[in-house]
Each structure stands twice: as structure tokens, then as C-alpha cells.
């Protein structure tokens, strides 16, 4: 299967939405001495492998999948990229 048949979807919490995991990880980093880290935001990554004969624009298809299921539009936004 060629590389171009894969799409990677990144799901992040929207700006301004509290990320309790990020806040807690930042505190742990401070405890480890990394006081130069201003903020930690967590995100999710999904890699979709499409059948080689999938028709149409895979970017549009991956975006549709993000909108329908992978991301919750109330709190999250997404980006998709090939590969």
C-alpha cells in the first residue's frame, strides 16, 4: 500500500477550552525543573489508511470523518494531512 493512501488527523481542544491533562502535565514538568514551559496542550492523532481504489479527494474524505466522528465540534478542532 502506497504512502499516499494514508491520512493523518490531528484533533486538538479549541483555544480557550480548558485542557486539564495539559495543565497537570505542565505542573509535572515544573516539578521536574522545566520551568521554561509556558503551556502544555494535549491532542489526539488518528492515522486513516484508505483502500487504494478510494475515489475522490482523500483530504475532503478525512475532514468529513473528523467532522462526523473523530472530533467533537463543540470543544475540538482538527487538521488533516497526507501520509
Amino acid at each position, binding site marked *: 500500500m502506497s504512502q499516499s493512501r494514508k491520512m493523518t488527523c490531528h484533533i486538538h481542544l479549541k483555544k480557550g*477550552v*480548558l485542557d*486539564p*491533562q495539559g495543565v497537570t502535565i505542565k505542573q509535572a514538568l515544573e516539578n521536574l525543573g522545566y520551568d521554561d514551559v509556558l503551556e502544555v496542550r494535549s491532542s489526539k492523532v488518528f492515522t486513516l489508511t484508505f483502500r487504494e481504489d478510494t475515489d475522490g479527494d482523500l483530504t475532503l474524505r478525512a475532514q468529513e470523518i473528523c467532522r462526523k*466522528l*473523530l472530533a*467533537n465540534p*463543540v*470543544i475540538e478542532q482538527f487538521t488533516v494531512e497526507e501520509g
Partner: protein
Amino acid sequence: MKFGVVTFPGSNCDYDNYMAIKERLLQPVEFIWHKDADIGTFDCICLPGGFSYGDYLRSGAIARFSPVMRAVIDYANRGGLVIGICNGFQVLLESGLLPGAMLRNRSLRFICKYIYLRCENNSTPFTNQIEAGEVVKIPIAHADGNYYSYNGDIKELTANGQVIFRYCTPAGKITDAANPNGSTASIAGICNRKGNVLGMMPHPERAAETLLGSEDGLKVFASTLAALKSGVARVAT
């Protein structure tokens, strides 16, 4: 009045709801399997707590696409009474039947304990047996119960009387310390604009008899029954 309790793979409060309705409310109740697209005739449908589909992706995100939810969404859109408790509330949010979303608790911990709720609107089918401003004691048990919505949504929910329960002190004061999970505006339960769909994080079915520590939760079910008996909320499934 016939109640239905949906069982998703991973539901773990379906029997609690069933028993509260059968043994305490003394009403007929049946389980509804998540694969059933035709749910038959019910007067009220409960979506129970638990970890439907393992809470994979986001709590409630996979359950929302199960065959039974198509029927539940249709039932709710026709005015049928739907109660989503804990994971059931999360499923209702993911389904778009209620506005907003759940974030991880601000402590990042799973919290399981009795808390106090103030009833913010007692003229709904789910709260008519509760006094306005009454404080009820009902337990929570969740990791993702930090209710979030846009500022504009919160204002609209409040103005429309859609905020049904808020976390409070035993005396009924809304304070940050009495907010167990960081929910916006201390929100513990909301209903839709039409008032026929309730979502709440606390578990009324776990507080349906004094042996369990409180029977305040029974008031939610008793209210539903009273609304159904008055005839205003009955919808054919």
C-alpha cells in the same frame, strides 16, 4: 406507564435504573438492546450510566451511532421523554439532543461520592415533585463530568430555564468548592428547549431508597410519572 432502559455494551447502571423503576416507582420497565432500531412503545426512555463502548474516542461518541440511538433521537424529536444519566447524558450531548460537551474533571480524577444539587427549575416533567430551590442529595460517579459550553449557550440555557440542577453546598449555596468537577456555572443537569429531554451527571437511580443513603433520586422518576399521568408528556413510539 411503561419505561425503557437502554443497554449499551459497557452500560453498568441499567439494572439500577430498572430496579428503581420496578421496585420503587412500581411501574413496568423493559430493557432495550442497543442493536434494536425499532424500540416499540414506551412512555419514557432512560439512557443509563456506564462506559458505553469502553468510552473509546470520547464518552458517548460511539454509542451515539448505535441503531437504538436513531430511534431514541426520533422519539425525542417527537416529544417523548428521555432521561440520560451520567454516560447517558454524555450520549445525549454527542447526539446533539442537548447542547454542550463534557471535559475531563478538572482534578483528572474519577469522582464517586454523594453531592448536593439545587433544583433550578421545578416546572419540568422531571422535577415537578421537587420544590423550587430544593436541595437534593444524589451521588456522582464520573471522570468526564466537567460540563462545557460556549458563554452564549450558557446564558441562553439559563434564560430559558434549561439549567435543571446545579452542584451546591448542603445549604444550597453555589460555590466553587461545592463544584466537584469544574463544570461551567456548576451545571449538573440540563434539559432541551422543548423540555422533554433531561441529561444529568448525578445518579438518581442510585439514590432511590434510604438503605442506599438517600431516596432523593426517586423524585426525578416520580416527577416523570406524574407528568406522564397528567397526559402532557405521552408520545407514541
